[in-house]
């Protein structure tokens, strides 16, 4: 056997091994995709089931129909959906502004209180936020912003304390070179002009990331929303309202309606997310780790 043949044989061996391991990976990836998607497929299928409203041992409905969506329309769900949508929209605007102000400042300015301030907020963040729920509830209730008026209350609390979550976007601002600022400053631009003429256009991914996360957050907000709106359906958001459908005395009547509600909530958010996926990935990989 010549040397040449030998190497080419070994080459083929490596190739075959590679093909085998790739094959195994494809199998695993398909398995993973199935596991990750299956519950969502199940939710969609069950939302069209007409013959029974409780949990059953099969997935594909025997009888298809839109009864569950009609039930949804006739319940308080519309109100909850609107509440959540308003909160999400308001927080997308307000939270974004607050967080960008905070992170831009801490990334760009060097002032005397900067270090102490950041350390202070780090320590503050170690307290469980839930602890403050009790007092925030009492304060909101004194202001008349609980129960049926929970929506403005939730917006207020959500945006007022959002400055603490500056880490991701600060990590991103840190990656924009400071020599750009300095060049502009030399040319006579004020700090304000530097911000909106130079930094903001460059920071588009993180701005979109912040808006996206701020918008999506309220859709899953459960605990504080429940605490503030407790017992008054008109003040619920989707999470609190739909949770009440799965309690022991409701679940047999409302299970499939819950599935339909889940579809209605998830579809718009997911479409929005997929459209802006690029920015989300950039934000997560760029800012979240460096923090």
């Amino acid at each position, binding site marked *: 056997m010549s040397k040449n043949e030998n190497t080419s044989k070994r080459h083929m061996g490596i190739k075959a091994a590679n093909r085998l391991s790739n094959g195994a*990976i494809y199998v695993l990836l398909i398995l993973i995709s199935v596991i990750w998607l299956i519950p969502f497929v199940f939710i969609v299928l069950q939302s069209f089931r007409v013959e029974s409203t409780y949990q059953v041992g099969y997935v594909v409905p025997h009888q298809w129909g839109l009864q569950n969506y009609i039930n949804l329309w006739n319940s308080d769900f519309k109100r909850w959906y609107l509440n959540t949508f308003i909160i999400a929209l308001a927080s997308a605007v307000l939270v974004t502004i607050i967080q960008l102000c905070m992170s831009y400042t801490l990334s760009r300015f060097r002032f005397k209180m900067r270090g102490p301030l950041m350390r202070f907020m780090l320590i503050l963040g170690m307290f469980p936020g839930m602890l403050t729920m009790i007092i925030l509830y009492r304060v909101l209730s004194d202001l008349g912003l609980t129960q049926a008026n929970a929506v403005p209350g939730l917006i207020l609390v959500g945006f007022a304390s959002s400055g603490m979550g500056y880490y991701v976007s600060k990590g991103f601002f840190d990656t924009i070179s400071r020599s750009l600022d300095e060049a502009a400053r030399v040319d006579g631009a004020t700090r304000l002009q530097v911000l909106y003429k130079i930094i903001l256009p460059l920071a588009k991914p993180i701005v979109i990331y912040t808006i996206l996360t701020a918008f999506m957050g309220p859709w899953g907000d459960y605990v504080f929303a429940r605490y503030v709106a407790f017992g008054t359906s008109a003040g619920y958001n989707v999470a609190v309202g739909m949770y009440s459908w*799965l309690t022991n005395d409701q679940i047999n009547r409302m299970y499939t309606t819950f599935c339909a509600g889940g579809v209605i909530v998830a579809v718009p958010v997911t479409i929005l997310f997929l459209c802006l996926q690029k920015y989300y990935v950039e934000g997560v990989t760029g800012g979240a780790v460096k923090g």
Partner: protein
Amino acid sequence: MKQYSDLEFLRLSKWQRFCYKFLAFFAAIPRAIANFFINIGKGIKKCCLRVAAEFRDIGQTFVNGDWKTKVSFLVMGFGNLTHGQILRGVMFLLFEAVFIFYMIFTGGYWLSMLPSLGKQGPTNDYDAIYDSYTTHYHDNSFKILLYGVLTIFFIVAFIYTWRMNVKQCKIIDQITKKGGKLKGSRDDLRSLVDESFYKTLLALPLTGILVFTVLPIVFMILVAFTNYDGAHNGFSNNLFTWVGLDNFNTLFSWQSAGGGQSYSATFGEILTWTLIWAFLATFTNYFLGMFVAMMINKKGIRLKKMWRTILVLTVAIPQFISLLYVSKMFARNGLINLALGPQGLGWISQPLPFWEDPTWARVTVILVNVWIGIPYLMLITTGILMNIPADLYESAKIDGANAWQQYRKITLPYMLFITGPYLLTSFTGNMNNFNVIYLLTGGAPTNPAASGAAGSVGYTDLLITWLFKITTGAESQYYLASVVGIMVFVVVAVISLVVYNVLPSIKNEEDYQ
């Protein structure tokens, strides 16, 4: 403990270095404590000197200043006003007016009530005219505590502002003596979008944090030293009052609580599970997420974008939907048990106790958390994996390293170095991961031994869900919730401190820029 020199330290293997650092950290604790007290002593001395210097400065300003300065000591901003700095002067004056007005009309009352938290609760008085009993409300402990704290904040702010006002006078004196020009209101306004633009930007966020985070946290820390609960709500039934360290004694007492095990045993159990959960939840997600990312990243795998999109899709769907749905799927009469049971495939005769058996429940919770967490970790690690220089792998291959060796020697160290801080935040985040536990199990199955403790404690309860249960439970022992919250803080702070001292990748933040 043996001290290694730098050279000896470098000769150790990675694992030994880690152990050495770990042990060194704990060996240094007595010394650190001693230093801590020495530093406190030094700090106090420094503080005293500083205060003395401030007073000397204030005195000198008063003695050296002209009559305008002297008036400014009483009427804030007078010096600024008479020297043409209208904006600053008006702000000072306005602040003083508001402060005096507030202190006279309400602040004084709150402050005087703070030591007792109210003297008279609601009374049920006989009303002779209507021949009936009516309830009259008097003091309100809750408001006294809240506004008392607020008033103290306000007083501190006032002292600070007053000091600033005196400083301003000194500066004005210095400048006018030299014949310089003072900054006018126009300059002040311009500086707010230029040199001190940060003040403008931070004003709103910091006010929000102060009012909606700092104030509540201070308030809740103070609640830990009171007997504030459902039966003492400070207003409509009984007033609450200071009880010192009683609540901490309750939590750490070894006496049986209401027939069950003691509070400290319950607390210990929950804390142990919280730590186990945080550890497993963080690292299962981390390694499996990395594994999935590496599979998708591997050369020769097609449709990379599709695989990623499928996983990312699950990030988009609000967690409460997926968690609640999965929770019901695993329930006793849920999809899985029905499908496997007699009416379905007939593989099992008894429903599997996913949420009823403590061990099953804990394992299921961790598995579902993997399902929730992997896509996110996959996203994070993908970016970092792509940043590892490819020539490292090339040279490793030439040296004959197999895939596992490459992973152990190149990928893992690199990843751990970059994601060290992220792992720490994710660990503490998982300790407080309310949503996953509460929406999946609600803390179930109930722990019968802990029946005497506040809230119905379950085997999958974390400290944070326990805190929530105490708060919303029948007796609403807010004081106990507050103590638990403080303990969570202590645990998180200690872990962060230890890890920050052991981790290699705490870099100087300026290095990035």
